[in-house]
């Protein structure tokens, strides 16, 4: 069966520090992968999605970047975090019938 791993669960980082969040999927090949961000009590904002290795689509201009170095690995990065980067980050993969399966999320606090 397919599983998705996302880590860390929580992260507190100072402004200006770098960021690397990792997401891996098991049990499927060539999945579509997604990074979403959720502000407190709000909906999900699509940040990046990828349909294959090295193929990244960015949805909004921002301080973040994404990479897909391997088929089932999706990484969210920043060189210098801003206060506005705080939020709940969710990775997801797309299964059959366009359903998304989400990881458990990373709560990022930038101080």
């Amino acid at each position, binding site marked *: 069966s397919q599983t998705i791993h996302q880590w860390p669960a929580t992260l507190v980082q100072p402004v200006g520090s770098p960021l690397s969040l990792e997401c891996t999927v098991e049990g499927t090949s060539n999945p579509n992968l997604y990074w979403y961000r959720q502000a407190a009590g*709000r909906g999900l904002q*699509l940040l990046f*999605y990828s349909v294959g290795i090295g193929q990244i689509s960015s949805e909004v201009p921002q301080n973040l970047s994404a990479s897909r170095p391997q088929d089932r690995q999706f990484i969210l990065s920043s060189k210098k975090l801003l206060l506005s980067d705080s939020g709940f980050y969710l990775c997801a993969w797309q299964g059959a*019938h*366009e359903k*998304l*399966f989400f990881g*458990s*999320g990373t709560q990022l606090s930038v101080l």
Partner: protein
Amino acid sequence: SQQGEEDPQALSIQEGENATMNCSYKTSINNLQWYRQNSGRGLVHLILIRSNEREKHSGRLRVTLDTSKKSSSLLITASRAADTASYFCATSHNTDKLIFGTGTRLQVFP
């Protein structure tokens, strides 16, 4: 930008009552999905309805879709305290993207 808008933003009911949440969207869709999120957790898929379908059932869930009004509703019958969560609609278009709405926070009191 977000495609869907849920209504109401928050809903409080007693156990046993029905809960109805609505979702409106802006452009044509391939399908519409509903997800549930417990506080601080990832989202879980509940049900998918295709653009050529009008109603779908899954257990205590009933989803309707009106493409002429660009709206959908999620009905949870005989609600339980365990149904307390946020519920989101998400729409799929002619791309690989799934765009989520703003969500409805449901509180079910025992």
